[in-house]
């Protein structure tokens, strides 16, 4: 304080300008760091779409750019889910594709013909830069600009967010996290100002979010919960009423414009809390008005009766409507949020996805590093402060922590609040320990400012002087006094120790984030990298090799059967019709594929014929040691098939008597007869010169004496490292023989010959 008043007015303006410059350049650097740390995969590999789901999004985006918006909305895709097809236009969140398309169109307008693929690849990093900025705004609303800048830095490079937003990870989450933060920022603004304009903006960004990601339900429940908690705390205010009502009314109507969402906001249980709080808020507002009209004694009775009866009526109404089927009950995915075993028992298809597994504890640390222990500190500080907006952080923190513990992928929704809370915590710490102005003389501070020392310190020193709008200087001082009750006697040494240790923590944080991003989250998983003995990089490109072979050398209408994991990639890279894909909307169809894979050839062949399957694609890692192959996923196929045909497919049959899952000489007959086993190990032992083949993934030996033989299908293509194996389904025999007979005939072991042998013996 003394610092600022000591200067002339022109000096102050100079400092303000310098501050602005510092702030802007810091934010630009943060955005730059956020973007560049996501480019590992582009530099190491190429500008390529990653993993599985992004391939569908990319394909849909291409469809949109080629056919226009209306055709896109009415898109019926007959090249997936053969023979059912998929009403793609009505069953996707178009936000991501539309965003890319708009960017593409704008760039075209400026005569920048940038390939749509590159836009798709770079979309996530670009939006992550934006997320860092919005996090800054959001945290500034919570505390001050120091906290904002810190939170922006954390958000920019936190691995928990990077995991879903590296270049090439063209998924809904890429833009959804940005929108989540934008919506929350607008919401806090609207709540603080009681402004219908900000409420409307909240609704607009909410609409964008609904268009972009199924996770919008998180906002749909988060904001009502915030309001509900505020009401319980007795903090009703007309600002809340205005903000919530404008958001809910506009946001709900807008969200219903998305074809995939439609009438869900008024018919599904997931959305009922928002509606309920909306009703409750009307009642509270009404009672608030009555209270101002009637004496308080009568009012008390009135309110008790009214609240009870309305609660009873609305609850009964909810139950009645649910049982009548007007309101859809909770979905399975929702139940699995409360009971982690629910999916495993009831919906194996959800449980089979690795990102739906419960989170292991180390991954919290892995994804957030030191932020994970700063997070509770930040929440605690908010608890001490407890303005309306701080309640939001607390509610968000508690909810997101729970969800992140239940499902790995929901770590993503936790990360923003962790960064915000950590930003608040670190800035509070710096407020106290980096505040040299109080212990030292004014001249000393002047000299540090003029020298242009540490960016953080400098902003911090002055931000206590310049009060930001929305955060009163008293609030800032409360944060300060929390930790520095007797800062005058605190020795300089203590400050130095704390600052140095925290600086090193920050260094470690950056190092950890870079390391995690580089090692864990930057693999496209379409191309695999391995190192040769001399240290040079060697690319394993089997997936694209096989997909490209399919694309070039099979009829354009060929139907490919594979496990659903590869459906989107086949659609995107091989451009061929698939039976099932990652959309997983039809469990029975997936179970059919699972049954075909886990049954013997005699059972599978009619299924293949009925579904017009031309080629079967399996992933086999036994030669090169690629562990994510189909044999390792095989049990899920069996389980999902068993869910539909418990009589015909039994998981137990695939385990040995000692309850082991084996592929070697101990493998069960069912296992050895299954299509998947046969297709994986067909001619595998031949590669070992007729000796037992060694499976490098499972570390088991495949006996050469029991090498599988195929009768109804034949090998069509195997990629360089055997990772992808493609089989062609044989057509029916020309002269009506069954396949084993035909093969025997081709090999010359006819029954006639046998007879002549017996004759000879006679």
């Amino acid at each position, binding site marked *: 304080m003394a610092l600022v008043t000591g200067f002339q007015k022109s000096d102050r303006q100079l400092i303000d300008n310098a501050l602005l410059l510092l702030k802007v350049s810091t934010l630009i650097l943060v955005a730059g760091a956020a973007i560049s740390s996501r480019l590992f995969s582009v530099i190491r590999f190429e500008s390529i779409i990653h993993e599985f789901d992004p391939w569908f999004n990319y394909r849909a985006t291409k469809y949109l750019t080629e056919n226009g918006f209306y055709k896109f909305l009415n898109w019926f895709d007959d090249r997936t889910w053969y023979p059912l097809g998929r009403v793609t236009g009505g069953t996707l969140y178009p936000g991501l594709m539309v965003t890319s398309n708009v960017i593409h169109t704008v760039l075209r307008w400026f*005569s920048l013909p940038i390939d749509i693929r590159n836009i798709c690849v770079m979309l996530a990093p670009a939006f992550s830069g934006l997320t860092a900025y919005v996090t800054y705004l959001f945290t500034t609303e919570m505390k001050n600009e120091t906290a904002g800048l810190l939170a922006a830095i954390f958000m920019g490079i936190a691995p928990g967010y990077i995991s879903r937003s590296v270049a090439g990870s063209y998924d809904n989450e890429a833009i959804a996290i940005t929108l989540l933060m934008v919506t929350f920022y607008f919401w806090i603004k609207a709540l603080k100002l009681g402004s219908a304009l900000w409420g409307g903006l909240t609704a607009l960004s909410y609409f964008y979010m609904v268009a972009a990601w199924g996770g919008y339900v998180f906002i749909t429940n988060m904001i009502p919960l915030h309001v509900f908690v505020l009401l319980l705390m007795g903090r009703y205010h007309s600002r809340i009423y205005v903000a919530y009502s404008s958001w809910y009314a506009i946001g709900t109507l807008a969200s219903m414009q998305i074809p995939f969402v439609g009438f869900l906001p008024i018919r599904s249980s997931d959305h009922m809390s928002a509606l309920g709080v909306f009703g409750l808020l009307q009642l509270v507002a009404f009672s608030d008005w009555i209270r101002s009209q009637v004496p308080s004694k009568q009012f008390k009775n009135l309110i008790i009766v009214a609240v009870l009866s309305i609660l009873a009526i609305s609850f009964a109404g909810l139950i009645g409507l649910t049982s009548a089927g007007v309101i859809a009950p909770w979905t399975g995915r929702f139940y699995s949020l409360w009971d982690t075993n629910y999916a495993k028992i009831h919906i194996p298809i959800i449980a089979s996805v690795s990102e739906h597994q419960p989170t292991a504890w180390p991954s919290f640390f892995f994804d957030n590093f030191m932020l994970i222990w700063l997070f509770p500190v930040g929440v605690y500080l908010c608890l001490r402060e407890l303005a309306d907006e701080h309640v939001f952080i607390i509610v968000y923190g508690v909810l997101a922590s729970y969800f992140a513990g239940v499902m790995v992928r929901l770590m993503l929704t936790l990360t923003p609040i962790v960064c915000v809370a950590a930003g608040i915590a670190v800035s509070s710490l710096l407020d106290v320990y980096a505040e040299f102005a109080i212990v030292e003389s004014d001249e000393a501070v002047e000299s540090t400012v003029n020298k242009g020392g540490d960016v953080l310190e400098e902003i911090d020193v002055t931000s206590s002087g310049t009060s930001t709008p929305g955060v009163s200087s008293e609030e800032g001082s409360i944060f300060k006094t929390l930790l520095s009750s007797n800062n005058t006697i605190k020795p300089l040494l203590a400050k130095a120790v704390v600052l140095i240790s925290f600086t090193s923590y920050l260094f470690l944080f950056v190092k950890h984030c870079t390391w995690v991003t580089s090692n864990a989250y930057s693999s496209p998983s379409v191309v695999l990298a391995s190192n040769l003995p001399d240290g040079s990089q060697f690319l394993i*490109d089997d997936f694209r*090799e096989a997909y490209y072979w399919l694309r070039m050398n099979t009829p354009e209408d060929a139907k490919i059967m594979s496990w659903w994991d590869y459906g989107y990639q086949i659609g995107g*890279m091989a451009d061929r019709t698939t039976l099932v894909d990652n959309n997983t909307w039809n469990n029975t169809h997936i179970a059919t594929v699972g049954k075909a894979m886990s049954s013997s050839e005699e059972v599978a062949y009619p299924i293949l014929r009925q579904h017009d399957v031309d080629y079967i694609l399996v992933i086999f890692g036994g030669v090169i040691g690629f562990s994510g192959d189909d044999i390792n996923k095989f049990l899920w196929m069996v389980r999902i098939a068993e869910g539909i045909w418990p009589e015909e497919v039994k998981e137990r049959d695939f385990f040995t008597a000692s309850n082991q899952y084996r592929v070697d000489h101990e493998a069960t007959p069912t296992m050895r007869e299954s299509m998947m086993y046969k297709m994986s190990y067909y001619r595998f032992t031949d590669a070992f010169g007729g000796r037992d083949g060694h499976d490098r993934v499972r570390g088991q030996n495949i006996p050469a004496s029991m090498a599988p033989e195929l009768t109804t299908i*034949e090998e069509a293509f195997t990629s360089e490292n055997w990772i992808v194996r493609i089989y062609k389904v044989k057509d029916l025999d020309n002269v009506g023989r069954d396949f084993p007979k035909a093969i025997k005939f081709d090999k010359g072991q006819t029954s006639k010959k046998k007879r002549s042998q017996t004759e000879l013996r006679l």
Partner: protein
Amino acid sequence: MRLVNLLQVSVALFSVASAESIIPKTFENVQLTQSIDLTGSYLKRSLDITARNIADEPQQVYIVAVDSKAFPNLSILEGQDKSTGRSVLARRIEDAHDDGVEYYQLSLREPVQPGEELNLLVAEAYSGLLSPLPEVGGQDDEQYLVYSGSKYALSPYDTLVSSLKIKIYGTYAEELTIGDDEPEQATVEGSGHILSFGEYKELAPLSSKPFKLRYSNPRPLVRADKLERDIWVSHWGASVSIEETYWLTNIGTRLKDSFSRLDYNKGQSQYNLNVASIRQLRFPLGPNARDAYYTDLVGNVSTSHFRSNGQESILEIAPRYPVFGGWHYNFTVGWSHDLSDFVKDVGNENYLLKIPIIQGPQDISYGEVDVRVILPEGASDIQVVSLFGASTDISNTYSFLDTKGRPTVEFKYNNLIDGHRSGEFFVQYTYTTGDSLRKPLAIALTFASFFTLFLVFDKIDVSIFRKK
């Protein structure tokens, strides 16, 4: 003697078309040697002609006949005066042809006096005339091709002595019987790679003797069904960037049944197995090429090597998978050259682009070839000289930060071979300093107007309540 008799009989049997030619008999072929090169993926034929003027006047043109069945596949026909080594202009005679024969006219540089001899060399190439027999085969089977043609070189003139030489890459060759005709025993030279037939004497005009030769060819038959070649000329970047997209097919023996990686890996160590698959393509790009890349529809392909120096640049690419007979593969390659390598300043702000029609791999035949030359924005007065019967068309292409678009000259070729690498086309255009300043000015103006707009909007106060 018996041979001569047999020859006469066969002439009578097969020389159906050997009636009278509409071409006047101004010449008489003293010696006509037909050499057929079957080592590549398409057919190369050359005629070594020694002819005497038997007319009364000096002759300016010599006529070459081409079988009209093979004519659609004729990719190139060039003449050369053997005594001087200079090339002779060859042109098709559109309005004169006999039954089953098309004619080309070679315009001699100097007239041949009556009684004098002429020594000519005619080189022809045909794509798609070689067919595999059997058409389908296993992965490890050897590839056999069949050439069908005539043992006598077709000519509208009388021929005194004719002979045939065939060169093959493998060592197996066998003449297939046609009708009752006994296969003729060929003389084998060059450790089995060269077969000689003949000599045949006293042949009437247009006489022919069909024969079929089946021979082994352990190399893939590479054909680009389509090639799109874009040449981007940039004066600002001082570069000529080339991007080529190939639609490739192996037109050799079709692979029966399936492809086995196991057998393929085993065969890679042996010389003669699965050899007829396309495993590598080599692009000689001339000196000083740079920035080469190799992609296909699903992204970058990592299996390529590029080396470049002042003498030559070689781009070696391997397809994602070995391309067996009947399989397809398409891909895109691109590279850049310095502007000065291909564009000459001819003064007065006029520039001349002189660039090969194709720069692709060796031993390949092409179906449709579209070459587009994208000139810098603002280029005008475009003049085009093209060879080999291309149709040209001028359009406009919009690319990075264009306001007016770039003039684009499109050449459409058909049925080319890698021999056309030596052929070039010329595009002359005017490109002024003003044209070159258009783009920076446009960018500067756009930014300036943005800043101005921002300034204006920044001054406008849109708030409902006046701020204090």
